[in-house]
C-alpha cells in the first residue's frame, strides 16, 4: 500500500495541534498543583487572547513582531541552519531605527518612516548574515555564534542608549530621543492594531512566495535539503545560505524597527522583551513554513496577551506564559517522533512492492 499524499498534510496539521493541546493540558496540571483552578486558567487564556475586540487587538499587536522574528528562524532553517539570534537582530534594528534621525535629516511623513524601517532591516540583516558567513567561511556553529552575537548586540544597544544617544529628559528609564510625530507608525483604520501587522503578514507571504515559486528560493531549499548535492550541481551554497540569513535577519530587524516606531516611540529597555526567543518557538511550531507562521504567531500572541489577564485575575506569576511556551516547545519537538505513525494507514509498510524482474529462461 502506498502512502497517501493527504496523510502528510493531515499529519502536518494534526501533530502540532495535538502537541499544543498536550501542552495546554500539562500546563493545566501544573497550575493545579499550585492550587489554581485549571478550568479557569484555560478559560482566561481563551478570553484574554480571543474573547472580545479589545483582546483581539492586543493579540494581533503582539503577533506582528512574532511573525517577523519567526522568519529570522524559518528562512535560515530552510537553508539548513539553526539560527536563534533573532533577539539581537531585533534589538539592533530598533537601535538603527531610533538612531537614524541622529545621523541625517529625514523627510517628514511616510518616506521618512520607510527610511527608518529600511535602516532597521539592514541592521538586522547584516547582523544575522554575519552568523551565516562565520559558519560558511570559518565553520563556526551558527546556533552558538548567533546567540553570542545576540548578547553582544544587547550590550551595544545598552551602551548607546544609556550613553551617547541618551535623551537627557529620560531620567528613570534611559531612552533615545523620541521619534518625531510624523515618523511614527499609527493604527490601521482607526484601531489600536498598528501597520506592523500588515508588514508581518506581507513579509510572511513574500517569504512563502519566494521559497515556493522563485528559482532562487528553490535553490535555497535544495541547499537546506542536502548541501552536498547542492554543491555537486554547482549551486553557490555560501551565497544562498548567507542570503537566507540576511533576509531572516532583516525580518527580525524590521520587527525591532516597528516596535520602536509604532509602540515605544524611542529605543529603550522595553524593547528587550524576549520577542526574538518567542519567534524561535513560533517558527518550530510552524515547521519553518512562512505561511503557517501567520496563524501560529497569532496564537502565541494570544497567549502573551492572556498572560497579563492570568496575572491580574488569578495572581499567577508573570512567567506562567513562559512555562506554557516551554511545555509547548518540548512537546512539539517530542511529537516529531510520531511523524509517520500518527494515522492508522501510515502504520502499514510504506514501500511499494519491488517489481519482479522476469527470470532469464
Amino acid at each position, binding site marked *: 500500500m502506498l502512502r497517501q499524499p493527504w496523510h502528510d498534510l493531515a499529519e502536518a496539521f494534526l501533530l502540532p495541534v495535538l502537541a499544543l493541546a498536550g501542552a495546554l493540558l500539562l500546563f493545566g496540571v501544573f497550575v493545579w498543583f499550585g492550587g489554581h483552578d485549571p478550568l479557569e486558567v484555560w478559560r482566561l487564556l481563551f478570553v484574554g487572547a480571543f474573547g472580545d475586540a479589545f483582546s483581539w487587538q492586543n493579540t494581533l499587536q503582539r503577533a506582528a513582531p512574532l511573525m517577523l522574528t519567526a522568519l529570522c528562524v524559518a528562512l535560515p532553517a530552510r537553508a539548513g541552519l539553526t539560527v536563534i539570534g533573532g533577539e539581537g537582530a531585533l534589538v539592533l534594528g530598533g537601535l538603527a531605527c531610533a538612531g537614524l534621525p541622529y545621523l541625517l535629516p529625514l523627510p517628514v511623513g511616510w518616506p521618512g518612516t520607510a527610511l527608518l524601517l529600511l535602516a532597521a532591516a539592514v541592521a538586522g540583516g547584516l547582523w544575522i548574515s554575519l552568523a551565516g558567513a562565520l559558519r560558511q567561511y570559518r*565553520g563556526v*556553529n551558527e546556533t*552558538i555564534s548567533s546567540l*553570542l552575537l545576540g548578547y553582544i548586540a544587547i550590550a551595544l544597544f545598552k*551602551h548607546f542608549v544609556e550613553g551617547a544617544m541618551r535623551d537627557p529628559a529620560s531620567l528613570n528609564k534611559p531612552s533615545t530621543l523620541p521619534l518625531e510625530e510624523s515618523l511614527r507608525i499609527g493604527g490601521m483604520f482607526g484601531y489600536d492594531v498598528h501597520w506592523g501587522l500588515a508588514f508581518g503578514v506581507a513579509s510572511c507571504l513574500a517569504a512563502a512566495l519566494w521559497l515556493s515559486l522563485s528559482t532562487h528560493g528553490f535553490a535555497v531549499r535544495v541547499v537546506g535539503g542536502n548541501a552536498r548535492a547542492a554543491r555537486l550541481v554547482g549551486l553557490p551554497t555560501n551565497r544562498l545560505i548567507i542570503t537566507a540569513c540576511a533576509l531572516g535577519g532583516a525580518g527580525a530587524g524590521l520587527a525591532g524597527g516597528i516596535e520602536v516606531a509604532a509602540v515605544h516611540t524611542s529605543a529603550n529597555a522595553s524593547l528587550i522583551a524576549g520577542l526574538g526567543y518567542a519567534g524561535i518557538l513560533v517558527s518550530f511550531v510552524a515547521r519553518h513554513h512562512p505561511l503557517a507562521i501567520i496563524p501560529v504567531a497569532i496564537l502565541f500572541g494570544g497567549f502573551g496577551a492572556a498572560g497579563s489577564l492570568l496575572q491580574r485575575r488569578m495572581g499567577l506569576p508573570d*512567567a*506562567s506564559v513562559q512555562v506554557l511556551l516551554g511545555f509547548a*516547545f*518540548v512537546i512539539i519537538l517530542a511529537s516529531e517522533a510520531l511523524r509517520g505513525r500518527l494515522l492508522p494507514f501510515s502504520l502499514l509498510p510504506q514501500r511499494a512492492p519491488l517489481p519482479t524482474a522476469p527470470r532469464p529462461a
Partner: protein
Amino acid sequence: MEAFLDVLLAVLGGAIRVGTPFLFVSLGECLTEKSGRINLGLEGVLVFSAMAGFGGAYLTGSPWLGVLVAGAGGALLALLHGLVCSLPRVNDIAMGIALMMLGAGLAFYLGKPLIQPQAPQIPSIALGGWSDSQAVQAALNVNALFPIGVLLALLMGWAFMNTRWGLLVRMVGDSSDAARALGTSVSGVRIAATTAGGFIAGLGGASLSLHYPGSWNEGLSSGQGLIAVALVIFARWSPVRCLGAALLFGGAGALGPALQSVGISGFYHLFNAVPYVLTLAILVWTCSPKRSLKGAPMELGVSR
C-alpha cells in the same frame, strides 16, 4: 599604578568568583558532549538549579542541602533532555533551545516567592590570610565549591582515560556503531551522561544563587550556560583544560565591574560583553570548515 593593581587583583579574584559557575557548567557540558550529544539547554538548567538551590537552602536552612537540591534539579531537567533526544528524529540542538525556555520559565514561575528572602550562603575559604592587605584578602576569599570543582575536573580527566565508565562514555561518543556492536545501549549511556552532566551544571547554579551574586533574581544568569558550550570547544573536550578556560572567562567577566570600581564606567556594558566577544573570537580562531576539531567526539553534531 595603584588603580591598575586594584583592577588586576579584582580580575584575579573575579576569575575564581565568576569562573566557578563556568567551571561546573563546562564540566557538565564536557561530560554530555563526550557521550556524543550536545546540551544547549544547560543555560536553562543553570537558571532552574540556581532557583532550586536557593529554595532548598532557604527552606532547610543548610547551604549544602541547597547545593544538593540544585544538583538534583539540574539532573532532572537534563534527564528530560536525554530522554526526549533519544526519541527518533529529535534534534538535540532544537531540544536544547526548548530546554533553555522551559528551565527559565519554570525557574521564574516557581522562584517568584524567593526573590525577597535571604538564604544561608555557602561558606568562603580565606586563602588570603597570609597577606594583611584588605584587597588581597577580599580577592582570595574563595567559594567553597571552587576546590570541589577543581577536584572534579581532575577526577573527570583521570576517569575518562582510566576507568571502564570513562571508556564507555568516550566509545559511545566516538562511534555509536562500535558501542552497539559491543552490546552497549547507546541511548542508555547518553541519557546517563546527560543526567550526570546536568547534576554537575546544577552545582554551578548553586554557586550563582548561594555564593556570588548570592541571591535569586530573574537576571541571575545571562548566558553562562551557553558560553560554557563554547568553552568546552575551546578546551577541546578536556576537563582539565576546562578549568583553565573557566578561569580565563571568569576573569574576562570580572573586568567590567572591576573597571567600574576604579571609576572607568563609560564602557561598562561593552566590558560586560567581553566574555561573549572572547568566545566568538575563540570559535572563529579554532574552528575551520575543512576539518573537524581536534579532540572532538566523532558523533557530535556541532563540530562536524
